[in-house]
């Protein structure tokens, strides 16, 4: 059983190999767009559906719990906006993506490891860590803030659709709430968080895949370990970033 220090050491050693100048930029960019399509575009539908549903549910629950006549109705919009931007669109979406992206990356790289495809690259003189992992990390880190932004907008639309359908408050009250005491920094804060979380998702899952051992069972095990570790790290970094940025 590997200790925490050994895992941390191996992880940083791998990252030193990953963050090197690519052998050829043309190959890197080709991989970068390929990975962007796979990791980001491939996750959009999932993020869209979840954000739409959560936006609606947040409005419904807030409206049901605001019974005091002293609290204005537009607070439903304020609560939905704040919940979405501060936690849901970055932390919750990242936890969901940890399952989707994380397992896909660790099993893909793990399978390549156990079928000696990574060894084949190394023998050719190709830096396999740089070729396989750098495009994944960079594409996810660069494009994930946009995904957070999309999740936020879709969440707000989800809330609006639910309000329009149920009439728990008026649409005008909801929109007033969305605009009330709005702090733009929260958007950037959430985008930064999402970027950091996606760095963790891609790099940690790649680490577990890269060092997978023991056949298909080993690949499954490394995939599970990757997701558990990523979820823990997301929660820890959520605390750290919130303390630092807010």
């Amino acid at each position, binding site marked *: 059983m590997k200790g925490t220090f050994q895992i941390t050491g191996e992880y940083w050693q791998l990252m030193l190999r990953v963050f090197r100048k690519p052998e*050829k930029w043309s190959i890197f960019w080709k991989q970068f767009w390929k990975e962007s399509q796979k990791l980001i575009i491939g996750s959009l539908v999932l993020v869209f559906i979840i954000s739409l549903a959560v936006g609606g549910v947040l409005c419904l629950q807030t409206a049901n719990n605001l019974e005091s006549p002293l609290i204005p109705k537009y607070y439903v919009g304020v609560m939905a906006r704040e919940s979405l931007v501060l936690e849901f669109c970055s932390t919750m979406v990242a936890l969901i993506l940890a399952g989707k992206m994380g397992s896909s990356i660790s099993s893909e790289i793990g399978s390549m490891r156990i079928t000696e*495809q990574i060894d*084949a690259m190394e*023998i050719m*003189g190709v830096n396999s860590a740089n070729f396989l992992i750098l495009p994944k990390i960079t594409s996810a880190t660069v494009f994930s803030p946009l995904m957070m932004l999309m999740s936020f907008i879709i969440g707000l639309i989800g809330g609006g659709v639910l309000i329009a359908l149920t009439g728990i408050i008026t649409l005008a009250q909801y929109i007033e709430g969305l605009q009330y005491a709005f702090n733009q920094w929260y958007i950037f804060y959430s985008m930064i968080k999402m970027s950091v979380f996606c760095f963790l998702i891609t790099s940690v899952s790649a680490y577990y895949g890269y060092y997978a051992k023991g056949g298909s069972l080993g690949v499954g095990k490394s995939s599970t370990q990757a997701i558990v570790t990523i979820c823990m790290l997301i929660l820890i970094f959520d605390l750290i970033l919130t303390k630092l940025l807010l």
Partner: protein
Amino acid sequence: MIEVKGLYKEFDGKMVLEDINIKFQPGECSLIIGASGSGKTVLLKNLVGLYEPTSGEILYGGSNFNNMKMEEKKQFRREMGMLFQESALFDFATVQENVMFPLDFFTDWSFEQKLERVNFCLRRVNLENVNNLYPNQISGGMQKRVGIARAIATNPKYLFCDEPNSGLDPTTSIVIDRLIQEITREYKITTVINTHDMNSVMEIGDHIGFIHKGRLVWEGNNKEIMDSDCQPLNDFVFANNLARQLKKNK
């Protein structure tokens, strides 16, 4: 030429290779044979630099591979080709992209020049009209041939094959063996093959090293192997009835 001098390799205190001394000459098929678990794959992985020796030297044309710096090793590796036991073709790439992979990285050729080289290598291993197929769409024998084509794409000086016949029927095995031998002689490559297939030994064994319990206990060629008095080698070579009958009738 590859020269191995006093090579030792241990894992977690267990010695897997002990005092290996052997030379591999260009233009020859050098076979490393031995029972499963004898240490032949570990030796091959030491030769290609996937493992670091515990002690000893591996000299490529007089240069010590393990003393080379990272960049030197990287440059040097471009002169190596390897055929893996399970072919190790990239799942994400077609046959053409697999063979073109090292050319993409290490040449500045145009796409047309690379394609010409890919088609030449594929023709050399008797494969045509498979460029756009993925590895899972072709047979095991074809995968091995694509693996050879990829290994020779950059004109390597050294070719390493890890059990090239595993999982293949005897007829396809002979085709693969002969192909490796032809390429070795044609391009004067130093070829090292790991195998426990006696058909390969008899077919292409220009130079054979027998490893037993981590030690090199016999060296010779396919003509000498039948008359050896090395007991562990005889136990290995004449393990089946057919081989014993052949020796008896000789």
